[in-house]
């Protein structure tokens, strides 16, 4: 250890792993033991914030509806008294705002969890859900579906998901070293694949025209305005499996982050855990991208913010990121559709505008 410290000071650039670096993010909190009670408390607190965010999102919009009317509409809707509700309120609350909020929660939770997973897997604080090219692969799939079957409902989502899965597989085979996933190799393989696919996107985009191209550029930016015609129950089912899988591996991820060798000695099947997290995080990303396009910044920001607030323990970080991502995107999307209404802004820009100041505030507070 003294030798290492000496080397670090001599080299001037201390090489920190995510674990060490993010350990310092957490300050003293990391040493507080995690009890089920504390986890429950954190989740309940975040869910309460999410509830408030949802209420705000339900209230805000170009169509003026008071909180009272929304509550009445929700109540009547919940007990099946359709006839009692003015048809416009029904359209706005159940037809527009709720589906959009539901889609936002899905996408926010999926991207943030995937981001946290990738950051552990790649041992890199800069990793986000798109770093390994999943979003580019999904975009290629979407473009190809627009060329081949332009008007088939749901085709674009399915093609995007298939594109994402294909990319995941290719990157997996490129990213192995010595029979298992190696962080550095995987990262390089992913970045190269992503650049290659981005070039393919640009090539295909210049050969597409008119309507398709227009839809595509929205898709590349990310957009919650038009929920896809896919059953959302299934999407939430996939989300639950993905988040649950990464959460199940959280204790092992904690150990792996202290060092793969050490984790192996403690009985962790490192190879398997990495593969499981890789597949789950990639599927979550593919899921989010295929229904809403590549909404940016969320998957990078939220895990860091949660780490600063609740510590580096992945058993807290994963559920906290999932709910935190949902909160941020619901609020960001509310801003996106109201600040310059009726014009809508790209939600990806709003996640950065809403999230970056929070991130900077937390970072400065920690540094001080």
């Amino acid at each position, binding site marked *: 250890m003294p030798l290492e410290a000496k080397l670090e000071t001599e080299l001037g650039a201390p090489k920190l792993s995510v674990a060490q670096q993010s350990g310092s993010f957490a300050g003293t909190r990391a040493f507080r033991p995690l009890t089920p009670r504390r986890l429950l408390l954190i989740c309940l607190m975040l869910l309460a914030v999410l509830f408030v965010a949802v209420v705000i999102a339900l209230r805000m919009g170009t169509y003026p509806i008071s909180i009272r009317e929304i509550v009445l509409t929700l109540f009547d809707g919940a007990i099946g008294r359709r006839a009692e509700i003015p048809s416009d309120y029904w359209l706005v609350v159940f037809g527009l705002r709720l589906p959009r909020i539901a889609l936002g929660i899905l996408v926010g939770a999926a991207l943030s969890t995937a981001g946290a997973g990738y950051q552990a897997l790649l041992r890199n604080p800069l990793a986000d859900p798109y770093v390994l090219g999943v979003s580019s692969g999904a975009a290629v799939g979407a473009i190809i579906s627009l060329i081949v079957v332009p008007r088939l409902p749901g085709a674009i989502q399915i093609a995007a998901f298939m594109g994402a899965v294909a990319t995941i597989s290719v990157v997996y085979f490129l990213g192995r070293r010595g029979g298992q996933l190696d962080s550095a190799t995987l990262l390089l393989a992913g970045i190269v694949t992503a650049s290659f696919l981005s070039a393919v996107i640009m090539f295909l985009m210049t050969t597409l*025209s*008119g309507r398709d191209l227009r839809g595509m550029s929205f898709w590349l930016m990310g957009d919650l305005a038009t*929920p896809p015609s896919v059953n959302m129950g299934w999407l939430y089912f996939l989300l639950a499996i993905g988040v649950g899988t990464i959460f199940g591996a959280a204790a092992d991820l904690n150990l792996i982050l202290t060092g793969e060798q050490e984790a192996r000695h403690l009985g962790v099947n490192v190879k398997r855990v990495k593969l499981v997290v890789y597949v789950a995080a990639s599927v979550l990303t593919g899921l989010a991208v295929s229904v809403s396009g590549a909404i940016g910044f969320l998957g990078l920001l939220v895990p860091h913010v949660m780490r600063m607030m609740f510590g580096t323990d992945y058993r807290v970080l994963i559920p906290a990121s999932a709910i935190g991502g949902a909160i941020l995107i619901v609020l960001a999307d509310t801003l996106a559709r109201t600040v310059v209404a009726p014009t809508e802004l790209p939600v990806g820009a709003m996640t950065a505008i809403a999230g970056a100041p929070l991130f900077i505030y937390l970072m400065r507070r920690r540094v001080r």
Partner: protein
Amino acid sequence: MKRSGAIFAAFIVAVAAYAGTACCAPERFANTAQGSAARMGADRVVIDGTGRRIAIPAAIDRVVSLAPNLTETVYALGLGDKLVGDTNECDKPLAAKQKPHVGEPVDPNLEAIVALRPDLVLATAINRMETVDALTRLGIPVYTTDPQTVLQMLQSVLGLADAMGVHEQGAKLVAQLRARLDSIHARLADRPLQHVLFVIWDDPLITIGQNTFIEDALRWAGAESVVLSRQKWPQLSMEEVLRLQPEYILYAAHEEQSPLTLEDLRGRPVWRDLDAVEMGHVVNVSEEALRPSPGLVDVIENLARELHPNAFGSQIGN
């Protein structure tokens, strides 16, 4: 850890169950809404410009237009007072600017559209399919047009007139437009086509390809694009322009964009060496040229006079 895992799993299931029920509702609801719309008076089924069958009320009193060319068509049919909303881009006629806006054509605010309680929403190729699908799922009928030629534009005007219940006005308007086109055609029938470069955007240089309604409009005006491309809006290098040496350079002025004037081009390298620029053959066709609406016929007339002054020699001032 086992316990907290179970707790979290319960959370996820609860959230999923809640959200699942909350968002499956609209699906069920969309069907019933369409059903109720049908009960309440959607006693007409029309086929729109893209071949979709849509059920619309017998009397159309509230129309929302999602594109400038559709707004212009609505006004040309004398239905300006039935237009209850249009987009930020709808600027012609001036009255259209005063209507409530629902956002940009590519990304209109669905809630704003719902709030206007339209009987019918008009859409075209510049709108996204997702918007049309989302409105349809909400039970709001959307009539979509996608004219690719000048004659298809006339056809779409007829279709829109029928859908909005003003068949007579539509037939009259289209007959007038058709007569004007035929008269231009008669004058230009034996004239050679002028070779033109139509500039959609100057930096990067974007022009028109074949199979666009602009290319078709150029032919009606006695002109032909020098660029032969299967792409609709190809990007062009200046080298290629130099090689093609168009006889005229046409551009469509946008209000916010500084127009590409002859003086401006004479100051630009390569551009100033083009024969067309040296001879002053630079024409600003109005922005109407980019919109497949009845105004396109005005553009064709003006352009025909500009490019073939001799054919109209005695008629100027008519």
